[in-house]
């Protein structure tokens, strides 16, 4: 599978007259995991919506392999670029296998029959997300973590080379958050899928990202490897938060420890600076 290049150039977009994104440039590294972080309302979800053509830009463009995604026929695009939105809806009573098979939608025409290829894609997706045993169960009956795996399986069945996810770990327990991120890493490593997602948790973002993007006020504040991006200076500028950064002994990746106003054992440089 060849890795696709997804780039945004001079992108402006928003709702109504106000532009939330203001001339943003971003190149999503092909075949890697990109994580976008930033404070609330910094435009990270808007960016994901424009990059998955749920929203049309007011200026600039998003290119997939050099071709504007807003000018590509939607079905054709949906075979290459997948998106898991923040709150998809599971129809009442639908079974896991049925829901996952809906991911085949862009591969089927009006009159084309369901093929063995479609069955394989669904079986692969269920196997990869380890939910084969849930295949006949109604989605309503599953736990939050299982349900999120079902949605990811559906996105996998779509067999796109690029997969965008809008906060795939929200509302999940920490063990399920890690599980989802591990799963996406498996997918990235075994299929070479380019993954780009918005995450809230900075430490999980730094742990799983190959390329970490920090956004602030509709622009990219800084982007690069987690070590370059997750620094005290950047956390202060992007989130307005004082922090300490240490290295995670298990992953060797940086972790951010926030400094608040209370329960500080020893006064640190940062708090002294502030007072």
């Amino acid at each position, binding site marked *: 599978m060849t890795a696709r290049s997804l780039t945004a150039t001079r992108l402006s977009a928003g709702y109504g007259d106000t532009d939330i994104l203001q001339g943003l440039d971003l190149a999503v590294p092909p075949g890697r995991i990109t994580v976008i972080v930033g404070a609330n309302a910094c435009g990270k979800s808007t960016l994901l919506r424009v990059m*998955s*053509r*749920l929203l049309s830009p007011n200026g600039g463009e998003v290119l997939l392999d050099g071709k504007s995604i807003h000018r590509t026929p*939607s*079905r*054709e*695009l*949906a*075979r290459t670029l*997948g*998106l*898991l*939105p*923040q*709150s*998809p*809806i*599971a*129809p*009442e*009573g*639908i*079974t896991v*296998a*049925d829901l996952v*098979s*809906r*991911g085949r*939608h*862009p591969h*089927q025409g*009006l009159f084309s029959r*369901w093929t*063995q290829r479609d*069955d*394989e894609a*669904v*079986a*692969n997706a*269920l*196997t*990869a997300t380890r939910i*084969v045993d849930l*295949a*006949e169960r109604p989605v309503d009956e599953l736990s939050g973590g299982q349900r999120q795996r079902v949605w990811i399986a559906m996105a996998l069945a*779509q067999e796109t080379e690029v997969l965008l996810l809008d906060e795939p770990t929200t509302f999940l327990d920490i063990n399920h958050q890690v599980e989802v991120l591990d799963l996406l890493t*498996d997918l990235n490593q*075994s*299929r070479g899928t380019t993954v780009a997602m918005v995450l809230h948790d900075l430490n999980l973002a730094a742990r799983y990202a190959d390329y970490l993007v920090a956004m602030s006020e509709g622009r990219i504040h800084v982007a690069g490897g987690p070590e370059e991006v997750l620094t005290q200076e950047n956390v202060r500028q992007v989130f307005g938060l004082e922090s300490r950064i240490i290295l995670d002994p298990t992953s060797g990746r940086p972790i951010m420890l926030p400094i608040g106003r209370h329960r500080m054992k020893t006064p640190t440089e940062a708090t002294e600076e502030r007072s």
Partner: protein
Amino acid sequence: MTTSPATLRRIADNRNRRSNRRLLVITTLLALVGAIFALTLMLGQSFTPPAEIIRMLSGDSLPATVFTVGQLRLPRAVLSVLAGLSFGLAGAAFQTMLRNPLASPDIIGISSGASAAAVFAIVVLSLKGPVVSIFAVTAGLGVAMMVYGLSFKNGVAGTRLILVGIGVSAMLESFIAYILSQAPAWNLQEAMRWLTGSVNGAQLGQALPLLVALIVFGGLLLGRARDLEALRLGDDMAAALGVRVAATRVLVMIAAVGMIASATAVTGPIAFVAFLSGPIAARITANSGSSLIPSALVGALLVLAGDYAGQFLLPSRYPVGVLTGALGAPYLIFLIMRVNRIGGS
């Protein structure tokens, strides 16, 4: 990542079971529609043997049969089936598109809009035939756009659209009552038709515009069945799967309104058939795949059976809308109570 052959087989079996079940449901419904259709031709105030009906239909002149079956029962049954199919199909399309069983055209004012226009055309403008249908379709589309526009505020929320629709519907119904009260020759049967729907006095000639609308608009809708199914996963998810959401919405709305209004122009707004068919069909197909065709058949079944029961199974005669209305109202109350409990998002 290796998928075992067992898993692959399991998935294929699973899919085959789903599509077989769907096929079984559709065949059973078809058979039921056929059976009740035949029953209504044979058994009314008197019994007509099937052989006689077949002879009559193939052109033999049997004066008594030509009257009871050819003039009375056949047009009634044909119109019941066509109207039922239209209401069922259009209702399910709206409910699927807006992901809410309350978003049915007969709840959100589209049926009353079409009905009001038909009454106005007939009573005030003294029009007849297909022109009335054109009036009804135009008004239905107008009401649909108005309800959509009035409930638009940063996008359309399902609950807001439904509440606006219920209000518009109440307004239109009082308009219908007003026009009927101004009608020169007060006719209870006619009034009942425009208020609750009826196939009394049906003529075979009325079936043609309905059939044309059903073929054109129904075909359009069925062509979009897969996209409609994707819309059930949410607008964003559907777009991610390659569905052109806005275009699909417009097309589905035009097709569904076209069907509803064409049927309403002939039979009146047969109460709650559009509203009930989708949920009943979804229940019996266990939500596997598009429920458009099963809903259409359930609609036909409801109208056929409701009309038959209203004529012959009750102490006095009622138009079909009274029966379907009595059936639908408790379900409506149940749904509204449920929306209230969830808080209505």
